[in-house]
């Protein structure tokens, strides 16, 4: 699992930093593959190391993106909320430190309900701070929703590509 986690991290990080860096599809959708890592992989309650790691990954992405503070805030906020969201959403027996939170484990509907609010929060911060504007609020919300939905699909695709079949079912 650890090896899979490290490889997945480097792949999504490079996708984010090099390929999707500041690429706006259809002039409004931002793809953020890095959130795949922070949504799917294992969960430890109140983990300082996870929060610190998320913060520093955000800082490095900020350097690539010339957006000092925005990614570090968005990613650490997402990890912080996930810390409370998982125990709130899942029953106690489904929470385990070596469990993957993906659609294979949870089912697509349950995974959508779990991951979409996190993706939405991440994208909201990104849009509001990166574009420095809350003008035309309905259009902004529409853009965030569209971006969140497409990012959810991206996560499903990454899941299919990055998680080997053994990894998918090992922790079920």
């Amino acid at each position, binding site marked *: 699992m650890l090896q899979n986690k490290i490889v997945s991290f480097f792949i999504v990080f490079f996708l984010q930093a*090099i390929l999707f860096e*500041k690429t*706006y599809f259809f002039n409004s959708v931002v793809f953020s593959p890095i959130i795949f890592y922070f949504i799917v992989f294992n969960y430890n309650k*109140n983990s*300082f190391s996870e*929060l*610190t790691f998320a*913060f520093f990954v*955000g800082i490095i992405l*900020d*350097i*690539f993106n*010339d*957006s*000092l*503070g*925005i990614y*570090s*805030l968005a990613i*650490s*906020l997402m990890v*912080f909320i996930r*810390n409370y969201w998982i125990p709130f959403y899942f029953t106690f027996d489904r929470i385990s430190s070596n469990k993957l939170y993906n659609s294979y484990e949870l089912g697509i509907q349950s995974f959508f309900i779990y991951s979409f609010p996190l993706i939405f929060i991440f994208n909201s911060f990104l849009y509001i*701070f*990166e*574009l*420095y*504007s809350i003008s035309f609020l309905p259009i902004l919300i529409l853009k965030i929703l569209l971006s969140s939905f497409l990012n959810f699909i991206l996560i499903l695709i990454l899941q299919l590509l990055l998680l080997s079949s053994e990894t998918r079912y090992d922790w079920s």
Partner: protein
Amino acid sequence: MQILIRILAKNKYVFYFFFLALISFISIFNNNPYYSSSYFNSSNYIIGKIFQTRSLVSSYFNLNKINNEVMNENFFLKKQLLEINRSQYNYKDSVNNSYYDIYKVINAKIINNSVHKKNNYFTLDKGELDGVKVDQAVLGFRGIIGKIHSVSSNFAIGHSLLSSKLIIPSSIGESNVISSVTWFGDSPHILNILYVPKHLNINKGDTVYTSSFESVFPERIPISIIKKVDKNSNSNFQEIESYPIENFYSIYNVYLVENKMKNEQKLLEENAAK
């Protein structure tokens, strides 16, 4: 005090998050809209190298387009050369004071560029070692691109015209109506023209040029073309929107222009103001 310590200990995860969030907020608000130059310069070298490599790879896929641009540019330069030759022949006295003598030109390549922020920047593959200096004008093939903001040894970062902090003195059309060009941050396809009084007649399709009021940009370089004129605004001035001449989504090759007389002009103006 003990209660306070107990609350802190109990909620240390929350406080730790708020501490990290505070750092992020300080970074966001302290460094925007002008991200600190020092931060840029320290990370400039490593990031610049990465962007340079990426740009090297992607430029292979754009070779056809770049070839066309170079061909057009050669054509344009040739035409200019012919015009200079003609003017030399006809007006020998004016040659010494000609426009081309007072400007130093460096060519560079854009290796990173943003268009969707309130203040957009671009990174160039030339730096101090190549003669790039802060406040040099950056021109594209068709018109103005921006102005150099900070320089490291091998790279430079410039404010794009799509930056709300850049206000360029300009003149409109053949009648040279004095104005200023800036970007309000709404759409990368719209530049706003400021300070044009309502009694002056501005037409759709007029070209906006740089004026000689600022020593950074050479005079009469196209900036934008008037798209919409609104005289019914509440202010004393007309509300004018224009299309930028340059397409900021696809800029690769640029020219940095330095006015050799800029310092002399500035000094004289400062002395006169005292």
